């Protein structure tokens, strides 16, 4: 019998797997209180670094063709599909889902990625407009990404919650810094391995584990983060986020989804929420 | 050479360049597949067009001497590999190069005019040039005043080129546009026409100190300017891309651009040069691979 080599769960920042600079950790236990793993207790400095990397990566990511972005998201689905069994195992350990529930969540996550991959080259056609202004101008409006978006992922479902909020943010050209589930972070952190093998440029998606109360204020007050996707489901926290965000007029979207498996948990609205509209006027005349 | 009359330069008459279109064309020509005999011939041609360059503050006599030996015989043991076209150095190293290259057929090119920035008074630029020529330079690579150009002071830029041309005497004059600082293709085209009207023998992309330098699209724009100038005046002006040319693939791409824009007459070191330092070894490795069928290892080629 060969002893298994246990995984050390790290943060995923700037395309690299790093430990928290603070050196602190939190233990994660299974539903039966059995020790599973020590995860990094992320610090504000880790967060700062993640935002820096996201900022660097965002313009290049936004400039990639919609086609390419779609291909990359589809590749994420392929990678997750290939690792489905290992993800199911992690979910069975933490948060301790039944085999059927674990399978259901992994399948739904794969399908969600495919769903958003297919939006990359379509949302512009639906959200964009040509405006019939009452003067001799060609006037058009296009949706553009915002920049760096902070995401506070829900505690549950761990994997599907992460995917449901990350995919729509990045498919339209934003870069993301995600605070993953505090109570069951393992599958989310493992998802970094899918990100890392999908040709997603470094820094476009960054995953930080740790305690919300320590990290959220720094995210919400960060001057280089232009929007927050708040799916934590904590009213007091949300209120604080809302207030902190005003420091640089962040766009704040609050999500309280009853069922991540429903069709209502995906769609154009989730993308539109993280786009800005740019309108351009150009004269018509010889 | 210095008795060629200059021509009037009208900035408004310079054709505009569409960025997307020119980049597509340049990239399209990069898809030409150069294989077998054409590849070997192309590599040899490219080697014969190299201006082997060292332009560092730490250049010394020893370094230049070694480089000259490589310039004369890039591949010891293979006489079918031609010598390079020229060696390009700072003025102080001209006498060393001259001596080392005596009788070899390789020319000595010197930078001048306060290379690379060119922000010194005109008399200094002229003196810089005169001395380099006096020390034996066959060719002078000068820089234009980019600040004046971008400010629209074309008269100043032209008159400087003329003054330096005069100081060149019998030496041939390459005019460096520093395309990375001009930034737009329209500017590159305009500067090309300006330099040719002012009597340049060669127009050159870059000092090698600023990126981007000799991208295929920039080179194409300059070649098209040369083509139009030739068809208007009958004068053939040479072209030298420099900076960032590291691989055989890039060198062959540039040769394709020349061949399909200007035709046969420009496929000679008299009218086309490649400003490069590390390119030579890649060319030699590729040539060896073509001849032996084996992929090569850097350690087998000298680093001088």
């Amino acid at each position, binding site marked *: 019998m060969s002893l298994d080599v246990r995984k050390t769960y790290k943060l995923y920042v700037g395309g690299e797997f790093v430990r928290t600079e603070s050196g602190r950790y939190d233990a994660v236990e299974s539903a039966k209180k059995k020790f599973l793993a020590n995860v990094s207790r992320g610090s504000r400095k880790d967060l700062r670094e993640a935002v820096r990397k996201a900022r660097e990566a965002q313009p290049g990511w936004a400039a990639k063709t*919609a*086609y390419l972005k*779609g*291909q990359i998201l*589809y590749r994420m689905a392929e990678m997750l599909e290939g690792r489905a069994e290992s993800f199911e195992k992690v979910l069975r350990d933490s948060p301790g889902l039944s085999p059927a529930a674990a399978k259901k969540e992994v399948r739904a996550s794969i*399908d969600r990625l*495919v*769903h958003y*991959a*297919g*939006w*990359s*080259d*379509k949302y*512009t*056609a*639906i959200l964009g407009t040509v405006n019939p202004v009452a003067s001799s101008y*060609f006037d058009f409006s296009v949706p553009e990404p915002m920049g760096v978006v902070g995401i506070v992922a829900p505690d549950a479902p761990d994997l599907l919650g992460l995917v449901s909020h990350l995919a729509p943010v990045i498919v339209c050209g934003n870069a993301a810094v995600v605070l993953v589930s505090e109570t069951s972070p393992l599958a989310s952190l493992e998802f970094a391995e899918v990100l890392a093998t999908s040709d997603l440029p470094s820094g476009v998606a960054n995953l930080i584990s740790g305690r919300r109360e320590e990290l959220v204020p720094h995210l919400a007050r960060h001057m280089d983060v232009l929007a927050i996707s708040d799916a934590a489901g904590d009213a007091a926290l949300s209120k604080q986020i809302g207030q902190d965000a005003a420091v640089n007029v962040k766009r704040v979207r609050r999500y309280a989804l009853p069922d991540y498996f429903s069709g209502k948990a995906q*769609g*154009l609205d989730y993308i539109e929420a993280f786009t800005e509209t740019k309108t351009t006027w*150009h*004269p*018509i*005349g*010889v | 050479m210095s008795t060629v009359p200059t021509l009037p330069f009208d900035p408004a008459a310079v*054709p*505009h*360049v*569409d960025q*997307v*279109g*020119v980049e*597509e*064309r340049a990239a399209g020509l990069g*898809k*030409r*597949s*150069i*294989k077998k*005999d*054409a*590849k070997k*011939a*192309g590599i040899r*041609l490219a080697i014969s067009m190299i201006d082997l360059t060292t332009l560092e503050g730490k250049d010394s006599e020893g370094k230049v001497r070694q480089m000259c030996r490589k310039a004369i015989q890039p591949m010891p043991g293979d006489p079918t590999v031609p010598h390079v076209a020229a060696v390009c150095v700072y003025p102080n190293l001209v006498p060393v190069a001259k001596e080392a290259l005596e009788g070899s057929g390789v020319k000595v090119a010197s930078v001048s005019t306060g290379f690379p920035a060119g922000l010194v008074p005109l008399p200094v630029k002229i003196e810089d040039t005169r001395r380099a020529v006096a020390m034996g330079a066959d060719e002078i690579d000068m820089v234009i005043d980019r600040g004046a150009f971008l400010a629209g002071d074309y008269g100043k830029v032209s008159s400087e080129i003329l003054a330096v041309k005069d100081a060149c005497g019998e030496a041939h004059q390459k005019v460096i546009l520093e395309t990375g600082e001009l930034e737009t293709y329209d500017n590159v085209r305009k500067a090309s026409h300006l330099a040719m009207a002012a009597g340049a023998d060669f127009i050159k992309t870059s000092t090698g100190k600023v990126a981007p330098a000799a991208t295929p699209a920039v080179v194409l724009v300059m070649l*098209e300017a040369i*083509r139009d100038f*030739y*068809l*208007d*005046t*009958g004068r053939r002006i040479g072209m030298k891309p420099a900076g960032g040319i590291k691989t055989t693939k890039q060198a062959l791409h540039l*040769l394709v651009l020349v*061949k*399909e824009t*200007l*035709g*046969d*007459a420009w*496929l000679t070191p008299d009218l086309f040069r490649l400003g490069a330092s590390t390119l030579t070894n890649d060319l030699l490795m590729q040539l060896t691979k073509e001849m032996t069928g084996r992929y090569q290892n850097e350690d087998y080629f000298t680093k001088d």
Partner: protein
Amino acid sequence: MEAERPRLEFGSAWEYSPAPESKDHVKIEKRYGLFIGGQFVPPKSKKYFQTINPATEEVLAEVAEAGAEDVDAAVRAAEEAHRKRWSKLAPAERGKYVYRIARMIQEKSRELAVLESMNGGKPIKESRDVDVPLALAHFFYHAGWADKLEYAFPRHTVSSIGVCGQIIPWNFPLLMAAWKLAPALACGNTVVLKPAETTPLTSLALARIIQEADLPPGVVNIVPGAGETGAHVVNHPRVRKVAFTGSTEVGKIIQRAVAGTGKRLTLELGGKAANIVFEDAPLDQAVEGIINGIYFNQGHVCCAGSRLLVQESVADAVLGKLERRIATLRLGDPLDKNTDVGAINSKMQLEKIRELVACGVEEGAEIHQSSCAIPAKGFFFPPTFFTGVAQSHRIAREEIFGPVLAVMTFRTPEEAVEKANNIPYGLSAGIWTDKGSKIFKITSKMKAGVVWANTFNKFDPSSPFGGYKESGFGREGGVQGLRAYVELTS
């Protein structure tokens, strides 16, 4: 010093060696059956026809020819597949099948490109860099629509139509198959597709991919044949929607045949596009656009820029550049990576081109031709342009569908617009000018479905393509292209 007029010499200095694309990894069967109900089956018609390589005239394979009974079997298979499987599948699952096809085309890219060039005559450079990538992009794009149709048609209930009969031409065989199949499948329809008689092979390779992708049998059926087979598809009573890309002449026949039957119809027909070059155009890039517009794919392009309208003040300059530019076009073996102009698709097409070119000369236009060497075997025609052309000349009005450009001049923008629109066709147009406001003004006046400004022959699955007037109706690609493949109820 030059005594005579300066001339550029594009001769033999540093000639390119032959650079043949390897074809020994390409699998071509000796004989192909029809693809019906997920299987390759022999034709009930018992007929086979040969398909050749137009660059060498060698026979590549024998292909089954679908007769009336075969088409009937295909339609029934499509109907059953629609009723029992495809229309019942969750849209997202449908989408995943189409993604599979896209990925597999990607995996087999090189083989498909080589096959396309061998069977159709187009340069490998084009099939490799344009046809195959665009084809797979179409599948990729439309796969993503399958579960998002409610966004394309808000406040409507969206459902599929049923069996679609699709007839495609020989100029972009694989790409046209992609343009037809991808939206049809994404919207939940099943298909009977008839590839052109001279170019069945890439459609049949696609059939193999569809098999390997495990698409439910009968969702896609492929029935090679000629005009008669096409007529069987169009006229079959259980085909509910017809899509045709081909000549205007045949398009009109189909429109007549379908009238009163309740069948939905889209047509993508011929064109005689004007490429308009203004004096303030970036001229060197405009010349590239002209070249690309008419010599890309040997001019076998419905939206080809087959007329050049050049502003008189720059006509000489442009024509001089054009003359020099065609001297560097390389004509020859389509499988040579350096070939720019490949073979004409068939002997018949070559005859048509020759006839119209002779007519042009007879009507008094001045002919300019590349002096490139023409291979002894195969069907080839050199890049050609005519000057001194009048609006009334046949070469200015009729689609030649070959590497032949008709050049006319104009003085003012109004005149350019008038001349450009003064034809029964309306598929595409090109505008070349540096002035932005002029672009928007002129494009707004073009009676054409696709207008290119400072570029030409650009395609993307997200960008709707289709014509005005006798160039057909309906759009392919983009949100607009989905309309033809759905049934809407409010």
